Every structure is written in structure tokens, then in C-alpha cells.
């Protein structure tokens, strides 16, 4: 009985140690990863801003598309309108 208890105790201790180690390693890795990411992002933002100053971005296509679509719908409305006014 004593043996069993000691065995259980040992398993428990070893499990706790494993889990704590994993927690330290895991949280450590996650936080190191994100810290490095933050640094790189700050660097990146700086460089992109400099880049954007000297080579401004082209107007994104997506915006033009939306405009175009709107215009298409609008065209329909205009066509209908003029048709109605002619009647």
C-alpha cells in the first residue's frame, strides 16, 4: 500500500514537472514568437512607410470595381428614368 502510494506520488510529481515544463516552454515560445513578431512588424511598418513615401501605392483596383458596379446599377436606373420621362 505504501509502495502504491509512493508510486502514485512519484507519478504525480513527475507529471506536475512535465506539465510545468511544458507550460514554461510553451508560453515562452508563444510570447517570444509574438515579441519577435511585434519587433519585426514595427520594423516592417517603418520600412513600408518609407517605401510608400518614395513609391506611392497605386489606387487599388477593388475600389474602382465597386465604383464601376455602382455605375452599372446606376446606368440601369438612369435608363429606366429616361425611359419613363420620355413616356
Amino acid at each position: 500500500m505504501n509502495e502504491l502510494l509512493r508510486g502514485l506520488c512519484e507519478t504525480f510529481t513527475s507529471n506536475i514537472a512535465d506539465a510545468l515544463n511544458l507550460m514554461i516552454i510553451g508560453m515562452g515560445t508563444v510570447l517570444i514568437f509574438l515579441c519577435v513578431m511585434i519587433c519585426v512588424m514595427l520594423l516592417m511598418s517603418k520600412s513600408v512607410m518609407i517605401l510608400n513615401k518614395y513609391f506611392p501605392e497605386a489606387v487599388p483596383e477593388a475600389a474602382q470595381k465597386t465604383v464601376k458596379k455602382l455605375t452599372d446599377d446606376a446606368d440601369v436606373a438612369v435608363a429606366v428614368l429616361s425611359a419613363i420621362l420620355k413616356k
Partner: protein
Amino acid sequence: MNLLEGFKSLWNSTGIANFVLAPDPNITSVAEQFMHQYGQMIMILVCLFLLWLGIKKQFEPLLLVPIAFGGLLSNIPVCDMAGPHGFLGIIYEAGIHKGLFPLIIFMGVGAMTDFGPLIANPKTALLGGAAQFGIFGALLMALCLFGFTLPQSGAIGIIGGADGPTSIFVTSKLAPELLGAIAVAAYSYMALVPVIQPPIMKMLTTVEERKIQMTQLREVSKREKIVFPIVVLLLCVVLLPDACPLVGALTFGNLCKECGVVERLSDTMQNALINIVTIFLGLSVGSKLSAEQFLTVQTLFILFLGIMAFSLATAGGVIMAKIMNMFSKDKINPLIGSAGVSAVPMAARVSNKVGLEYNSQNYLLMHAMGPNVAGVIGSAVAAGVLLALCK
């Protein structure tokens, strides 16, 4: 074929005749015998309850409805739909066992995620990191208090990542036998975020802290958004290649979204592809809802550990925000810390809602999106650690 024989053989194949299995003389425990005999019937009731949760209570219905229906189908006696030659078994083998479905869904998640708020305020990423404490806290409890093995504990911990595809990917590698319970727990608690988080958030913050207003986020240029996924992937390559399947899929989807030259592909990832895969992922995850794997005391433990994981994750995020406020004069409202658990965008909405309760002009939503999306990356990194060390 004789008429009587025919009817008899048909009768023998009915559910009535097969629902209640004959008692197995090798099983001595009464409870186990009962489970053996009535397990499938009980599981069908459980699946009907899950369906009700999905449809009526709208608990992540896009996942829970297919999962519950898959569970229903796989518990039908006689036709072994979850077996190696059954419909669900074949899909499971091809899509989940090999890891394709969660990765494809993660692509779609990437194509739907806007990392802009994180790029505008990078330091909020730490909140998304701290919230991963839920993963390792639950792992510790699972391993030490509930007697799960190390791989099982890792899979249970990942519930705290609050990220469906990540959970399924990790569990299918570490402890496929727990997939049903873990997926149900993960998606249910994600839906319960508005219930689980507010009390913890309020407990850990003062009223003054909750009223902190944050400066408006700067605009993020298109170039930054394009470079960001590449940077994250390269970091992952350098620091933790084991997380690369998940992070790679996420950043591929995001790059397709942001680069603006492959809109066809990005649209497909966000719609047809993710929908198709979601249907099959759900059904085949459901096929792991078998009685002998789900109707155990372990499932109760997992449900308990899951809620602990969510709570610890929430606490981790909030406390990290308070710690950061000690060292910085640019104060962060600690309510956005809870958004670090991911559960995009539910957790960020909760931050916003609780914030508005104390200051009706304080819209925290965009500020909370930063830790929220950082939490997705953080969980993927944590998943990489688990995959590397828990095998």
C-alpha cells in the same frame, strides 16, 4: 428465400432488434454492461440535443449541425456508416486523418481575416499570447488531476485556443479517440464566450480600468497587409517549423486576400471551398461520436477542462493587459485582453459590449480585433509546440 425467413432477416436488421445489444458475458460491471447495451440509443439522444443546441440556441450552427448529424448517422445500428467502408468513415480517413480539412478551413479563415487592427497596434499581440495560458493550464490539470496521458492532455488543452480547425488538427494527430468530445466542447464554448467571459473580465478589472479610452487606430497601408502574412510565415519557419502547416495555411489564405491579384481564388476559399469542406469536416468529426468513446467519464472531464481552459485564457489575456499597463504610459483597456482567446469575432464583440456598459462612447471593437487575430496566430504557435513535444 422463404417469406417468413425474409421477414425475419429484415426484422433482424431493424433498429428495434439491434438497438439494444445482447449483454456481453465478458463485461462484469453493471454500468459498462448498460453502456454496451444502450450506448447507441443514448448517443442518438445526445446528438439530438446537440442538434437542438445548434439550431435553436445557435451554438456555432455551421459546425455543430453537421457534427451532430454526423454523430446521429454514425450511431445508427447495422449500417456501419462510421466504419472503414461507410460514407463517414471514408471521408474521415481522407480528410481528417490526413489533416487536409482543418488546413483547408484555415486557408478560408485566413482569407476572411483582416490583420489590419493588429498591424496598426502590434503590441496588442502580447494579449493574444498571454491568452494561450488557458491551453497550458488546462493541459496541466488534465495531466495531473484527471489522469489523461500527455498527448491526450495536449489535445484537451488546445480547446483553450478557442479555434476550431486548430483543435481538430491537433487532436486528430495527438488523440483521435477524443476528437468527438473535444470538437463538441471547443465549438460549444466558443458559442458560450458571451456567457463565460464577462464575469471573469469584471472580476479582474476595476471600474476605472474598464473606462479607459484608447486612441484611434492608424490606417494600415495595403503593402503592410501584403507583407504581414509573409513575415509571420517566415518567423514561423525560423522559430517553430512544427507550426508551419497551420500557420502556412492561414497566411496563404490571408496573402491571397490581401495581394489583390487573385480575387477569384480568395473568393473561392471564403465561400465554395470552405463551405464544402465544412460540411464534410462536420459530418466526419461527428463520426467520432461513438458511445464507447463519448459516453465516458472522460467526456465530462473534457467538458470541465474545456471551460477551465476558456476561463484561464480569458484571465491570462486580461492580466497581461494589466501588466502591460504597468510598464507603458499608453494605457490599454484590459477588457480587450479577453479577446486574445481568439474565437473570432465573438470575443472581440464581448470586449466591446462590456466596454460600452461602463462608457457608452467607448467602442473597443477594433482595438479588440488586434488581440483577437493575434490569438489565432498564438494558438497555432502553441499547437506547434504541442505537436513537437507531446507526441
